[in-house]
């Protein structure tokens, strides 16, 4: 019974944590749904531990925990793959931003006649080297 309580409190904490992240807008909606489903499933399995046994019997797995591990591992692999994909996409997006930023910086410099005009204290880094005095050529 004690372990039952620990598991119940644990599942509730996980669910509360996910909900809190979502509430503070730290988790975008597309991930929030995924993790909420995971949290709820966890809670349901904690409250009705027999559910796992009956499901594993139905699927034909002798030891119920093996079903849990199997599903868990497949799920985690899926999440990892998804994150790699997201990251590749984000990387490509930041690269494009960096490239376009460089182009805009040059165009700004040329618009200003190649001279750093009265750099504000906050943006000293813009073209503050000695080479900037040279006029841009077209």
């Amino acid at each position, binding site marked *: 019974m004690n372990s039952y309580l620990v598991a119940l409190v644990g599942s509730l904490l996980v669910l509360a944590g996910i909900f809190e992240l979502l509430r503070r807008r730290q988790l975008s909606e597309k991930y929030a749904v995924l993790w909420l489903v995971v949290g709820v499933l966890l809670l349901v399995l904690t409250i009705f531990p027999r559910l796992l046994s009956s499901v594993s019997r139905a699927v034909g797995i002798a030891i119920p925990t093996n079903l849990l591990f199997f599903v868990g591992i497949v799920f985690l692999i899926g999440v990892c793959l998804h994150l790699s994909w997201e990251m590749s996409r984000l990387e490509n997006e930041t*690269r494009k931003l*960096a*490239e376009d*930023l*460089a*182009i805009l910086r*040059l165009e700004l410099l040329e618009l200003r006649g190649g001279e750093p005009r009265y750099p504000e204290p906050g943006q000293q880094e813009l073209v503050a080297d000695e*080479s900037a005095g*040279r006029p841009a050529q077209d």
Partner: protein
Amino acid sequence: MPKDAHRDRALIVVPAWNEEQCVGATIAEIHRALPDAAVLVVDDGSTDRTVAVARAAGARVLELSYNLGVGGAMRAGFRYAVRNGYTAAVQVDADGQHNPHDLPVLLAKLAEADVVIGSRFAVRDDYQVGGPRRWAMVLLAKVMSRLAHTRLTDTTSGFRATGPRALPLFAEHYPVEYLGDTVESLVIALRAGCRVVEVPARMRARRGGRPSHRPIKAGIYLVRATFALLLALVRRWDVTVDLPPLPVLPEVESGITQ
């Protein structure tokens, strides 16, 4: 089409990463070889005085916020070229390995192809490689020649000219991964229906740095190059070019069957 049609609207793109020693001399050489061409140095997040030296030498400088690699630097260059209406872009490495004297040859060849590679192997000179690195280059050359329907000997050469048809393509899709800027970009161009040819170009020893010829490194290179090639071949590229294909000039008709 006149032979030097692209000369007046050619942008020479020089990707540079911490090349303050060489970039000035390289720019000066480019100016000597092509007095009216615009030179754009793409500073790939250098921490030395590359930007200052390049500006002092009279080049325009794109300053990337952080290091993107050659592929990212070149794509920035291509994007700049497209944005500013250039009809051709030529990559020249800042380290002096590519000889700017060959620039007019590369640009002239753009009259009959969309991508022109300056090949290190098409001339017999001091550029020699052996071992696994050599096998990798031979493998790449074999596969790419078959894809391009013309003989390509040096697919990993960075010394290449890009014409008006391939330029918008590269501005959008230039690969940034390992060997992507050389091998995969050719695959993309060919898939889009561009014509790729090569001309002999004499390479020089790098002024700074040193190419790696150690066996283990060369072995890793072989594996990575093979992987990069396979990846490039199986990847989907839904790409097309807008402009009509270039006419096949009579004197090279036998060599190029697009």
